[in-house]
């Protein structure tokens, strides 16, 4: 059989193939970054939203919740929580603000983070902003 498949052939396929698909990934990434303004709701990305994202990060919210489906699966999805709470920033703020310090006996409870009023507003503003990102209509329904 003449089909002696050589190691150098295999090596060429590895280098050629990976370069090929890496370039393709770069091209697609470039296109995506170019077209993001259409979907990522950046016209509403205010100072307060940016601040809210830092509050979100500095309290490790992603350690329990998902945001657009990514994160931990211990607590509800928050990408659409603004809509779930009846398009109300106040409802979000009140929920975070009045978490009992020692939890709820036997049940999961969100910790009391002692956020300032400004931080509360910022994180609510951030969640409102996220809920208005066009993410291909995910989640399937309001329950997230």
């Amino acid at each position: 059989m003449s089909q002696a498949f050589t190691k150098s052939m295999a090596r060429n396929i590895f280098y050629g193939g990976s370069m090929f698909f890496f370039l393709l990934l770069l091209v697609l990434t470039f296109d995506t970054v170019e077209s993001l303004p259409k979907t990522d709701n950046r016209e509403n990305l205010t100072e307060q939203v940016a601040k809210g994202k830092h509050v979100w990060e500095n309290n490790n919210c992603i350690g329990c919740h998902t945001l657009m489906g990514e994160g931990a699966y211990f607590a509800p999805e928050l990408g659409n929580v603004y809509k779930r709470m009846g398009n109300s920033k106040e409802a979000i703020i009140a929920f975070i603000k009045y978490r009992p310090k020692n939890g709820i006996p036997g049940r999961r409870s969100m910790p009391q983070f002692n956020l300032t009023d400004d931080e509360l507003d910022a994180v609510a503003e951030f969640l409102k902003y996220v809920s208005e990102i066009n993410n291909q209509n995910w989640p399937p329904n309001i329950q997230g």
Partner: protein
Amino acid sequence: MTKVTRYPPGEIIIWLFIMAELLVFGLFFAAYAITRIDNIELFELYQQNLDTTAALYNTIALLSSSYFVIRSVIAIKADEQKNAYRWMLLAVVMGLVFIVIKTDEFAHHIDNGITLSTNTFYMFYLSLAFFHYLHVILGLVVLGVLARNMNKGMYSSKENSSVETGASYWHMVDLVWLILFPLVYVM
């Protein structure tokens, strides 16, 4: 009588890759056709914006290129190294013709502000055409290396497995285009 398995030409691994590639393209074609069911008007409308004549030239370019590759393979098997080299060069030239025409088409789309996100039809058309375009470039690199090696006299009637391997891949690139052309431009 013992049954002898006759393998396709070239290295066997390339056929596994060809099948993998065809699987990907096949899935893309199927996705195109299935999405078209719910968007027939959209697809037919934007299809008319495509340059069918350019696609015709491209089909002829790729077909000739494939044909020249075959002539090159036949020549090398007859130990006509010089001829094999010339045919291979011609094949590369025809491949470059394809690249030039296709690049021009893409440039027109970019000028008109058309991207993957313009609409579903363009998403498929650009994805398919660009993915295929990259394959043509890769195939041309392979053919170029083969031509260079032929010029150095590295192949002969006994030693031509690499040539057949590269040729098989190139025919696959051609084959995909033969499906893509009618499906996306004409139908």
